[in-house]
């Protein structure tokens, strides 16, 4: 009997599939034929399926939302990540993937100048549209007002109500018009799929919500200032599978209007949700660097760099 031909994509050990157990769940939602623990579920196959069903109303040939050019970030002389040259296309989801400690979060936080107060030194150029983010005459507060950020653990302001949390960004930026605040809050909460849940308890403390709801509140808070770019630092890592699925759907919906940069160490999540992927790995000096970037499907299915191949097949990381 002839051996079954090698599947077109590499086979993964079962354990890769279990951390969030999502592949199966999301697949079921998308009416997929494969079962939960099918041996052909790999990031590449997931990406292929997601890409196959995607269609954009118009093809975006516009300039990238954010460009990074030869960016290097160091802390007290010690380099954390370097050789980052990357263009983040507008209104697409770009995933920054790689094992922990390779600089993905560092690069993300460099985009909205969060390293200003942690002593990180950023070299190279980062542009938000036309604006050089680190130019001496650029105001970091204004840069941050155009970028929304969601953190690893949900961090709603503990002393504020739900409504105050959502409108906080607007109020920080000088908006006082009550009508505008309410309108923006409702819109943001709807986009975060939270409106129906909280509309009757807007004045309760934000801490009464569950973990997943709090994270969606943080997303709403970031959305309320109408940013051009959303930075998300492993937003689902502290959440259960159900909450994770909701947020992944959210990301997919949001991407129609906002550019999203998503840091994740979960390859399956990247495959499900992102259009492009950038792979970060440690080089020989144990310094993080950008190894390869491209459409998600290609990265997982037919990577060009050998190290990327090693990573996506589970041999490293």
């Amino acid at each position, binding site marked *: 009997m002839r051996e079954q031909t090698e599947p077109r994509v590499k086979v993964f050990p079962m354990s890769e599939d279990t951390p969030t157990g999502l592949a199966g769940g999301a697949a079921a939602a998308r009416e997929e034929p494969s079962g939960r623990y099918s041996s052909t579920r790999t990031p590449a196959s997931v990406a292929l399926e997601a890409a196959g069903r995607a269609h954009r109303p118009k093809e975006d040939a516009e300039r990238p939302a954010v460009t990074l050019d030869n960016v290097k970030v160091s802390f007290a002389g010690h380099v954390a990540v370097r050789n980052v040259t990357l263009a983040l296309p507008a209104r697409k989801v770009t995933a920054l993937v790689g094992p922990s400690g390779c600089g993905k979060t560092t690069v993300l936080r460099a985009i*909205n100048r*969060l390293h200003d*107060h942690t002593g990180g030194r950023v070299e190279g150029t980062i542009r938000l549209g036309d604006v050089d983010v680190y130019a001496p005459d650029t105001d970091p*507060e*204004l840069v*941050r*007002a155009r*970028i*929304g*950020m969601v*953190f690893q*653990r949900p*961090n*709603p*302001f*503990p*002393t*504020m109500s739900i409504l105050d949390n959502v409108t*906080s*960004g607007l109020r*920080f*930026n000088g908006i006082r018009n009550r009508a505008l605040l309410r309108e923006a809050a409702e819109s943001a909460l709807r986009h975060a799929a939270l409106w129906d849940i909280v509309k009757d308890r807007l004045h309760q403390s934000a801490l009464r919500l569950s973990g997943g709801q709090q994270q969606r509140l*943080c997303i709403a*808070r*970031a959305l309320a*200032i109408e940013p051009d770019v959303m930075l998300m630092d492993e937003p689902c890592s502290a959440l259960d599978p159900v909450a994770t699925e909701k947020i992944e759907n959210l990301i997919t919906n949001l991407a129609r209007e906002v550019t999203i940069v998503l840091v994740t160490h979960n390859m399956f999540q990247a495959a499900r949700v992102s259009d492009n992927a950038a792979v970060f790995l440690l080089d020989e000096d144990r310094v993080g660097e950008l190894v390869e970037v491209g459409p998600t499907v290609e990265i997982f299915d037919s990577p060009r760099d050998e190290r990327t191949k090693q990573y996506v097949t589970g041999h490293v990381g």
Partner: protein
Amino acid sequence: MTVLSGASDLASVKAAVRHRHARRGGRAYVVLRWAAAGIFAAILTGLVVSIAIDSSQAIAHSGIGFLWSGTWNPTANQFGAGILVVGTVVTTLVAMVIVVPIGLGTAAFLSELAPRWLASPLSTAIDLLAAVPSIVVGLWALLVLSPMFANHLEPFLKSVPVLEWFFHGPAYGPSILLASVVLSVMTLPTVVALSRTALSGVALADREAAMALGATHWQVVREVVFPGARSGIAASLTLAVGRALGESIAVAMVIGNSPSVPHSLLSPGATLGSAIVNQFAEAEPGIGTSSVIALAGVLLVLTLLVNAGGQALLRGMGPGRLRRRERHSITQVVA
């Protein structure tokens, strides 16, 4: 070496050990410890009881109206704590008015603005203030501050039109204002140390969330850090009030020992603590001393209430957040 066979978890190990050493004459230790705890409990109850007993004579004489009667005139055999309570409250209040902005401003500076190499020695300096004996503060206030106030500050205050309502009348030195300043000097370290801990303890994640929305540094501090430090700051203020209420010797040296209604902050006055110090020596044995002791009782109740509140707030602040070195300096300023 004996391994306690069959002891499969720590709790049973501990129980077995206790059982063992009870048989072995480690009983001496148990007795000693219980004795110590017992002594301590005895002290606590003894404190309350002895003061209560010794003040009974005064209460019998003046009735329960002792607590609020407005006259304290030993020569006329009239003993009322009311005016003294008023004096205590007024001095503490004015002290808080001084200490709150300065203490919180300093705490904010040390926690949010100062670079680490500066914040550390400065906060040590302020903590050292807590170690200065109150008698030394009193001496300094009496011999250095009082002339300064009489010659420069008080005329100045009297000349400012709006403040005149608070500051008028003859000013010879001893005054409620001076006493309040002394109290603020003594409570400042408490407010600064605890508030600074509370401010520093606000999670970085919350600050970053605000920064990521476009807030300026001051906005982050005002909207996130200060509200987040609310309970710690409240604890520090409450404990400071508790300390101010009980401070006696330094206040006694500068307040003028005049248990009459003050007409301005520049006039002399008296507080519970200062009255105990100043009146004790001349008090007539019997009713006189008993009344002084009764004052101590009133002071005790007052401070216990305030301090219990402060301790509760302190506990609500988050016990896990204090690092060891902070705990040491706090022991110094709170104790």
